[in-house]
């Protein structure tokens, strides 16, 4: 068995990389795959708390790399899915304490055992970024429809291509369909025109994502959450399914048309 290593990156911080990693990892495991997610944000670990596994950490990524524990001892099994594991970042070290070769070596080992190795990349474009992208065969770029995040995404696409990670796929996070409709938020076509990359999916801004994360549960478990549906479609695409891209405003029921004609704003959320 030979798995695939995918890095989730963004350049800018705070766009939802860690949440996206948790949901993609969880989603792939829900589809029956063996998945390990790795937090490479050494010194600022967060993937553990987003996945609700923060109380189970004994060993971390740096312990595994520096042979202070066996690789399996640094892997924390998920609460809900027996085939999902987390390797947490070290909290008391810094990003320079590992190098790309060490992380690549670790991922090559994991690929023997897992279908997917998902790497949560730290923000920025320094050593931590270089470490995180080094083992990857594919890159997924997370952005929000804001000028700062998109500009940084363009910079990161250049760096990924320089590292021979061609055609990164884009997730546009925290889309607010109402604002897009009013012409006050960059839409998918604008962003594709600016960045010239393929879009893997769009995730609506969603209160239920925040309440799920508050509880340490990736929102993809909450089937009725709009962002959950969006993540499920993204996961299916990563897994090779041909899922058509829906507009976030795709609700075209009769009532929506009536509301549209009457100028009543409808719910911001549907799914992509």
């Amino acid at each position, binding site marked *: 068995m030979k798995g695939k290593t995918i890095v989730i990156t963004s350049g800018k911080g705070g766009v939802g990389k860690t949440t996206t990693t948790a949901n993609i990892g969880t989603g792939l495991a829900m589809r029956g795959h063996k998945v390990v997610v790795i937090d490479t944000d050494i010194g600022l670990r967060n993937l553990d708390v987003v996945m609700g596994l923060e109380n189970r950490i004994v060993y971390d990524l740096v312990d595994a790399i520096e042979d202070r524990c066996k690789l399996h001892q640094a892997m924390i099994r998920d609460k809900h899915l027996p085939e999902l594991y987390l390797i947490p970042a070290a909290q008391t070290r810094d990003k320079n304490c590992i190098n790309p070769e060490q992380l690549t070596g670790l991922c090559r080992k994991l690929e023997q055992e897992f279908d997917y190795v998902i790497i949560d990349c730290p923000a920025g474009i320094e050593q931590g970024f270089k470490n995180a992208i080094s083992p990857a065969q594919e890159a997924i770029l997370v952005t929000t429809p804001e000028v700062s995040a998109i500009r940084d995404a363009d910079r990161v696409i250049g760096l990924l291509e320089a590292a021979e990670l061609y055609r990164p796929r884009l997730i546009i996070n925290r889309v607010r369909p109402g604002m897009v409709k009013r*012409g006050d*938020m*960059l839409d998918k076509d604008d962003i594709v025109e600016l960045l010239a990359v393929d879009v893997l999916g769009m995730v609506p801004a969603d209160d239920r994502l925040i309440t799920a994360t508050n509880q340490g549960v990736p929102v993809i478990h909450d089937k009725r959450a709009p962002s959950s549906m969006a993540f499920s479609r993204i996961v299916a695409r990563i897994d090779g399914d041909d899922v058509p891209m829906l507009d976030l405003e795709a609700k075209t029921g009769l009532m929506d048309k009536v509301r549209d004609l009457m100028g009543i704003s409808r719910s911001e959320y549907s799914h992509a």
Partner: protein
Amino acid sequence: MLSLLRRTMSRKETDRTTDRTRDYTKDIARDRLQTAIMRDRYDLVAPDVMEALRRDMLAAVSRHLEVGDGFQEFEIRRLNQSLLLVSNIRVKGMARWAVT
């Protein structure tokens, strides 16, 4: 300034839901990003790209005109919102096949 004015004027459209005239701020965002991204890319790749471009352009011009050994001027300049490729080359003579 002029382009900002033009942009603002051209994007004023009537919002059907509120029935008033307003700007699409996403168009302003897109235009600003286009410029910023272009400049970022230029700043990062300039030296080798400019050298390759200079070589290719000199070769292309030389196929049609008799020119000296290089450009008098060859650079990218910033002009308001955009970048300009400025190149000057001295034409030494016209090849006979270029004359009708």
